[in-house]
């Protein structure tokens, strides 16, 4: 029997990180993720960990670089504008192949934007917001229990591949409360950290952690290594949920809190005699292409729903690759698509394909 609690999404992320053995957190407050910091400030000292409110997001991400270099589990969190500030450090961490967990509880942009929920940082998260040919693993939980499971998993994935993992949520997920069941004990996997720069009293050759390689032939070889790693991750780590897809006329594609609204749409449509399904990408990088191969023959069309102008829909189109029509509907700026918004689009598509 684990522990059953009613908790806020943000708090669950922080608790899960501590349970996963994270003892170093560096951050800077920003709505709607500040409860992560509150929780870390309260709890880290009790477990002998480090909580530090940095002087800026830029400082925080560079502290992550430093702590990750020593092989310790480390996390930072922010919301959209703050994540933009972190991009230089993120690119450096990618270049140095360091494991670290970054949380982005997205809000509406661009610029300072607003503080209401959004999914408009999909491009930034999955295609590289910083410079260079890099990727990070991007996880998209859709509820409080999943925030727990995936935060723990984020640390394991990061250590397994020496890569950054981003937990991409939004204001709804961060602020909502649901019941979470914590395990009595976390199974913390052990990983080889012989690469770490962590002090050894001259017992071995020193390790070098850097992202600078001025000889282009050498830098290319590093890049080839990175790309091989990303390929391996794409083979091993795709995660997704298929929901009600068996006889679906139209299959919705949505992640995070929007996928929850889509489940409401599926129920509503069923009452009107329309069968809809849902492909819910749980990893955004690697994009779960396998999920689409399983259902490609079933629907007349796909409908991607996002809280953005249409970002993930590009990956859906690449994956479907012209085999079926792909439509999009979404809201922007912190507005949340309603069941009615989505149903209207569903009926329009149904009309196109009668």
């Amino acid at each position: 029997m684990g522990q059953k609690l009613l908790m806020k999404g943000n708090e669950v992320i922080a608790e899960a990180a501590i349970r996963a053995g994270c003892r170093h957190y560096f951050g800077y407050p920003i709505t709607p993720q500040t409860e992560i910091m509150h929780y870390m400030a309260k709890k880290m000292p009790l477990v002998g960990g480090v909580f530090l409110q940095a002087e800026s997001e830029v400082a925080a991400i560079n502290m992550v670089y430093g702590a990750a270099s020593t092989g310790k589990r480390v996390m930072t969190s922010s919301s959209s504008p703050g994540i933009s500030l972190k991009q230089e450090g993120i690119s450096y961490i990618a270049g140095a192949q360091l494991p670290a967990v970054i949380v982005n509880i997205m809000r509406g942009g661009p610029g300072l934007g607003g503080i209401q929920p959004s999914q408009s940082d999909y491009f930034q998260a999955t295609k590289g917001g910083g410079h260079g040919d890099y990727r990070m693993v991007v996880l998209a939980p859709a509820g409080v229990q999943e925030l727990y499971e995936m935060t723990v998993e984020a640390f394991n994935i990061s250590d397994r591949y020496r890569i950054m993992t981003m937990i991409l949520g939004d204001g709804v997920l961060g602020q909502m409360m649901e019941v979470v069941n914590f395990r009595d004990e976390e199974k913390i996997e052990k990983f080889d950290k012989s690469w770490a720069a962590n002090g050894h009293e001259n017992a071995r050759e020193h390790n070098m952690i850097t992202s600078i390689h001025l000889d282009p032939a050498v830098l290319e070889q590093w890049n080839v290594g990175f790309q091989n790693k990303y390929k391996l991750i794409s083979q091993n780590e795709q995660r997704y949920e298929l929901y009600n897809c068996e006889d679906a006329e139209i299959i919705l594609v949505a992640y995070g809190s929007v996928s929850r609204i889509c489940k409401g749409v599926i129920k509503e449509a069923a009452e009107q005699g329309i069968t809809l399904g849902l492909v819910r990408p749980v990893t955004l990088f690697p994009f779960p292409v396998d999920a689409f191969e399983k259902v490609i023959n079933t629907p007349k069309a796909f409908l991607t729903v996002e809280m953005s102008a249409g970002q993930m829909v590009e990956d859906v189109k690449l994956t479907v690759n012209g085999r079926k029509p792909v439509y999009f509907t979404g809201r922007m700026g912190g507005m949340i698509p309603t069941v009615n918004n989505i149903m209207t689009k569903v009926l329009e598509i149904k009309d196109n394909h009668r």
Partner: protein
Amino acid sequence: MFLNEIIIAGFGGQGILSAGRLLAYAGMLEDKRVSFLPSYGPEMRGGTANCMVVISDEDIASPVLNSCSALIVMNSPSLEKFESWVKPGGIIISDSSMVQKKVKRSDIKVFEIPATQLANEFGNKTYSNIYLLGKLIKETGCVKPENFEKALYGILSEKRHYMIPEEMEVLKVGMEY
């Protein structure tokens, strides 16, 4: 199917968010699926607050509501904003000492309780939300009163536990009002 979609709205400081959390917590104690979504936007800084609570015996699709089966309002702007959200056959419970406006709809049940006035007369104005929750619990059966009591013990800090017997008394007054 057991499905309660509840919106509670009013000013900050009226216990809007605490009321929602208490319901969700009590729902959890009954092994129901629950979600609680507070407003956290600029309106909070401007003084108004609302929250959405779902208590269901099936998986909850979305914690974001666009309509509700029950609405508690503790100020006039909240009634204006959410009156049309209530599904036909649903209920509105209004703190009539704060909400001057009358509910216009005739396809829903309306309960007016001067909760703020009752709480002031009782001697603790922070109890106003409890009167309204009493009526909600009575009319919807969304949670059992004994689990609401357990939720109070679960959520309130220990130094406030002495208030709980009083709050349960207030809850019963609300139920029977």
